[in-house]
């Protein structure tokens, strides 16, 4: 049986070589000069990052004689289709489709196939036949086509979509999984496909299918849904439909932490939630359905998990969870103090710092996102600012200042969040490492970092007796001097100098 990716995120049990390979790939992804990384970021900026998922059973491919992909010509395709449709022996028909499927792995074969008159029609006929194994092979052929980078090929699959949707309410989990990945690929490739799928009822179909107990089906569904939610017309045309369905409740259910949480499934649905939330259609609804509570508890669970396992791709889940929480916190509905929606549990802070440490070691490029959440937690919350102090988290925060300019600005912003709440808070920021650290940041040339340092110093001078004095004694004025001519800093530097000297 052709088997796709089962549970992409597996717990430890992977070999050392595999971990090394992953680390190499990851480094390739984060190295500033990595060619691939640069190209991907460019694609993302130009909004052309098209992510597709390809299910291929490598074990079968080995058995079928390796990965050699044959380009099929018109005549060969026609022959395979004829055999598949009219062959007498079932095995013969199946073999013909297998050969076609292998050929369709090549873009040239795909092009030839879609240009051939009646080819899709025949394939759809086989897809809807009641010969189970032919049906499966036909579906795999469609899946190969769906993975094409040419929109024309994806759009050629349009006649099949109503059937793919119909099969979602069937019972064969492998087949449903295949249909879902195919749909997901088609969705991301072409707006024409989405324009057809919406009236064909894809949202209710997914809402029904999400009740499946099969993890592989759920992961595939999450993938397809995440592609749908990423469409550029999603905020107007798709997300309202999704929010009006039972999907959000089921998604939150699948993100509940606990022994039943499956990582691969959770990753997909966390990204779904992120696309919904950052489109800002109706986040208040999600909050009333308990999104903040669920995500907060999930964050705690993830922090516990990163302490247990060495390397399991957890950042793939942490990232969207952090984004969802951070954006949700900005909603007015999140601010109702005392209500059940209000996220006010200092364990969230503990979890976040454990995750920041995890990011520092595994994926430093995600530090800004974690610090963004920290900002949103602390900005308007005296309670969380107090927790930062009482849990001894100021010093670890200061240690992050050497990572990068973006990170430094965020760290300083969080420190400002604490300091701006007044003398009771500044008292705990002083003395310690803060002054020497700030003097170090003043030695940098990044305008934003220096700017934020100056803001923090102003607050400290205002609220902490002796701070200005200590600053002067540590040659603070000299540190400020080099920024006196910088346009964006001038006014503030001068004002700070005055305050330091004259109080």
């Amino acid at each position, binding site marked *: 049986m052709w088997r796709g990716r089962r549970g992409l995120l597996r717990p430890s049990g992977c070999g050392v070589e595999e971990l090394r390979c992953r680390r190499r790939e990851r480094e390739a992804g*984060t190295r500033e000069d990595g060619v691939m990384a640069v190209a991907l970021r460019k694609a993302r900026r130009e909004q052309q990052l098209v992510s597709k998922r390809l299910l291929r059973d490598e074990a*079968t491919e080995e058995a079928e004689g390796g990965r050699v992909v044959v380009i099929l010509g018109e005549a060969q395709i026609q022959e395979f289709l004829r055999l598949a449709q009219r062959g007498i022996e079932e095995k013969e028909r199946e073999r013909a489709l297998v050969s076609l499927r292998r050929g369709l792995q090549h873009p040239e074969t795909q092009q030839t196939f879609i240009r051939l008159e009646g080819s899709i029609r025949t394939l759809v006929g086989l897809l809807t036949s009641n010969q189970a194994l032919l049906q499966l092979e036909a579906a795999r052929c469609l899946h190969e086509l769906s993975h094409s980078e040419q929109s024309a090929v994806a759009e050629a699959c349009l006649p099949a979509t109503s059937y793919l949707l119909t099969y979602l309410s069937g019972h064969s989990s492998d087949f449903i999984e295949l249909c879902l990945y195919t749909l997901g690929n088609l969705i991301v490739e072409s707006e024409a496909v989405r324009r057809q799928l919406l009236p064909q009822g894809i949202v209710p179909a997914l809402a029904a299918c999400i009740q499946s107990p099969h993890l592989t089906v759920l992961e595939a569904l999450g993938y397809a849904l995440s592609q749908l939610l990423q469409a550029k017309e999603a905020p107007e045309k798709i997300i309202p439909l999704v929010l009006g369905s039972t999907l959000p409740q089921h998604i939150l259910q699948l993100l509940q932490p606990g022994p039943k949480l499956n990582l691969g499934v959770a990753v997909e649905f966390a990204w779904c939630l992120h696309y919904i939330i950052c489109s800002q259609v109706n986040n208040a609804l999600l909050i009333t359905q308990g999104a903040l509570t669920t995500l907060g508890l999930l964050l705690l669970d993830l922090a*516990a998990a990163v302490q247990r396992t060495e390397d399991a791709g957890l950042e793939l889940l942490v990232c969207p969870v952090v984004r969802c929480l951070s954006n949700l916190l900005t909603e007015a509905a999140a601010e109702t103090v005392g209500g059940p929606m209000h996220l006010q549990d200092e364990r969230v802070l503990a979890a976040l710092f454990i995750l920041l440490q995890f990011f520092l070691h595994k994926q430093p490029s995600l530090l800004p996102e974690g610090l963004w959440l920290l900002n949103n937690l602390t900005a308007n919350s005296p309670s969380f600012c107090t927790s930062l102090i009482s849990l001894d988290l100021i010093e670890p925060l200061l240690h992050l200042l050497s990572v990068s300019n973006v990170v430094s600005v965020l760290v300083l912003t969080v420190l400002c969040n604490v300091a701006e709440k007044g003398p009771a808070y500044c008292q705990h920021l002083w003395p310690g490492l803060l002054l020497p650290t700030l003097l170090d940041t003043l030695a940098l040339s990044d305008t934003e970092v220096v700017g934020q340092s100056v803001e923090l110093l102003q607050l400290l001078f205002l609220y902490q007796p002796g701070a200005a004095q200590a600053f002067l004694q540590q040659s603070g004025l000299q540190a400020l001097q080099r920024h006196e001519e910088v346009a964006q800093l001038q006014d503030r530097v001068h004002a700070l100098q005055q305050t330091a000297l004259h109080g």
Partner: protein
Amino acid sequence: MQLPPALHARLAGAPGAAAPLPVQRDSLAGNAPFRFAARQVRFPREHEFFEDGDVQRHLYLQDVITQVAAEPERPRVPEFTCQVAGCCQAFDALEDYEHHYHTLHGNVCSYCKRAFPSGHLLDTHIQEWHDSLFQILAERQDMYQCLVEGCTEKFRTSRDRKQHLVAHHLYPADFRFDKPRKAQQAWERAGALVQHPSPSVPCGCALTL
């Protein structure tokens, strides 16, 4: 980045918020030329702030980051045949059998033995083809339900329903799970009930409603 040892204990501890220290702001704070004001920030979807995380998500989907450990050998079993009466299909892998069973024997009409892709379509079929009460009611009210999950429209005839499927739901005009009863048409023409033959062996033709 050294974390205080008590932090892990705190994570595992009881929920709770810190009693906040007293807030006391001076009106001079944040005054020009200074600009700082504590505020939450939200980022919309396409914001460049999300660039790195999005690229990682993309790589994950393209399977670069997380390689699947080698798939275990597909469990092959000694060849066995389907146990359903009248079916002699043979298999050597359980997943193949699962799909066969669901496709051919899963949602089968007990009256005419036709197989359907889902319970929903089976129920609709039984109602429209084998329920005489349905026929009687259909003379007076709209009984033909739209086939799309979630659509509550009902129609007087199956032709009207098909019209709706095509125009409203963009279904293909030759959608295979919405073929009108040939017997229905014959009955309407000849005014007599015609027995519809039941295929007991899969013959490769399309499923019909």
